């Protein structure tokens, strides 16, 4: 078995009774939990550490020097990546930013409208509409993606930005979250007071309710941004022109070619590192705003 299994097994050993009942050695630190978490953290950081180091190696160093020894070729690798097909790599990054950014914004807007309507109003068919939308969560992407492709083809829309963007705008999960936040954050009295003052329903929503929903909508936006950025199946099916590829699909095609031309491996590795940096940066920034209560509110009940 691989050393991975060993790494997986070792934290489990930490739960044995003998070690959990503390000898006096650790009066102030819970030793076993700390070590277990450290092992988990190392496991999770290992591939990231590897790609950081591997990206510094030149093509020959990659296969000849020890994996965790830094190489000398980082600048050359970046230059090669820039030069590859006239910098198509950066086009992929921009495409991903467009798909994820615009997709998440549109998705959040649709979720906000729907969630607010489902939480605040009492109307015929409310639960039916909600349940039908929720059934979308359980629908396997592939049962949607293939007919979506064929229908897009009939509408002459395949291989366009719209073909990847539009199917992702409605997110049942986003609607679900927005409904919970609207119910929790927008008091019915406030909506009623707005009506007394003669404001239209749209105005009450945009001027009064929406600001109250902002913290929840940030979470919806982030979930959706990550989901679209990570999406692979839909662009894989919809797109054939690599000028419109997102970064995931672009790197995948590079890797596919790399299996015939190992020289491309350094490009794949450097590309993977540069593709991960913005997401890790985003992740580190947003995790401060990532309210645990909101997340748990989202997954409970």
């Amino acid at each position, binding site marked *: *078995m*691989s050393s*991975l299994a060993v790494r*997986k097994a070792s*934290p*489990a050993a930490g*739960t044995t009774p003998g070690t959990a*009942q503390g000898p006096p050695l650790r009066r102030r630190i*819970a030793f076993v*939990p*700390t070590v*277990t*978490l450290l092992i988990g953290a190392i496991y*999770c*950081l*290992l*591939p*990231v550490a*590897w790609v950081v180091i*591997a990206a510094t190696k030149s093509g020959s160093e990659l296969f000849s020097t020890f*994996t*965790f020894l830094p190489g000398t070729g980082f600048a050359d690798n970046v230059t090669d990546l820039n030069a590859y097909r006239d910098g198509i790599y950066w086009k992929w990054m921009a495409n991903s930013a467009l798909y994820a950014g615009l997709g998440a914004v549109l998705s959040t807007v649709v979720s906000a*409208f*729907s969630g607010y*309507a489902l939480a*605040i109003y009492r*109307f015929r068919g409310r639960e039916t*509409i909600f349940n039908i939308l929720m059934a979308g969560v359980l*629908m*396997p*992407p*592939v*049962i*949607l993606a*293939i*007919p*979506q492709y*064929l229908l897009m083809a009939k509408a002459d829309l395949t291989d366009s930005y719209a073909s990847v963007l*539009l199917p992702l705008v*409605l997110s049942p999960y986003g609607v679900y979250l927005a409904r919970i936040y609207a119910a929790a954050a927008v008091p019915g009295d406030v909506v009623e007071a707005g*009506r007394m003052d003669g404001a239209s329903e*749209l105005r009450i929503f945009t001027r009064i309710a929406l600001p109250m929903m902002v913290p929840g909508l940030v979470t919806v936006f982030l979930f959706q941004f*990550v989901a679209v950025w*990570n999406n692979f199946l839909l662009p894989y*099916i919809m797109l054939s022109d690599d000028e419109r590829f997102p970064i995931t699909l672009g*790197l*995948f095609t590079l*890797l596919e070619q790399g*299996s015939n031309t190992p020289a491309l491996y350094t490009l794949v590795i450097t590309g*993977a590192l540069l593709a*991960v940096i913005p*997401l890790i940066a985003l*992740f580190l920034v947003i*995790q401060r705003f990532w309210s*645990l*209560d909101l*997340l*748990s509110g989202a*997954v*409970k009940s």
Partner: protein
Amino acid sequence: MTSARRKSYGVKGAPYAFLLPATILFALFFALPIGYAMWLSLHKVQVKGLGLGAGAREEVWAGLENYTDSLTDSQLLDGAVRVLGYGAIVVPVMLGLALLFALMLDTDRVRLAPVTRLAIFLPYAIPGVVAAMLWGFLYLPDVSPFYFVLDRLGMPQPDLLDGGPLYFALSNIAVWGGTGFNMIVIYTALQSIPAEVYEAAKLDGATPLQIAIRIKIPMVAPSLVLTFFFSIIATLQVFSEPTTLKPLTNSVSTTWSPLMKVYQDAFGKGDIHSAAATAVIIAIVTLVLSFGFLRAANSRNKQEAAQ
């Protein structure tokens, strides 16, 4: 009078107006494709004469023919068995680790908790395809540190991308990517347990391990049920990780998982009718599992509530 009536009409119409964008998108990108997939799955292409010229290929009613073909297709059954084996590793290991880390984070006097929590959650930010690539390279003998270490130690070096180890290699990618998210879900549930609950147990001299097993785990059971449920659904739909490893090894076939088989039928062979039938079967299995599971979980909750 008129203005009051108009206003109340406006209020009644408002929720429908607000739901209009979602409804249109649902009709176009969910309902219509699902209906079309079902229509496709019940039809087949019939070639008239030599199959030349316009109208030579015609879509005719096929009844359940595509479904019987699909259900008796050995490639699909093999794929289903592979995914079951894969899921049998991923789900218990991932949720076991998520629970373990969540309990450790929730321990008194634990150090470095915020940093390690962030590190374990980090893979959530990395796309599945990129994660599969990174691990794929770590599995390649020429560049992997594992092989280097095994070589120096004079130990045997198994091929991680073939046979039995391939299951572990693939499972490891899913475990790596999913543990952190599930850990956060369980940890959040742990945090919401009031401190008083532990006081009595501590007074009775319960060890941290006993508190974990007797109190903490039962109290986060709903979160465990939920994470279990989503893990099963994700496992059934595994696609991008084996697809990404495919260029690195000959052991991952184009029909390794049921979804890959659907893709291969539709775009490799161009047989959209049988691909649609297979996709519908996968959807039905997912829905039956989901509702069965939710029903079982609900009835258990009710039983517990009744006690």
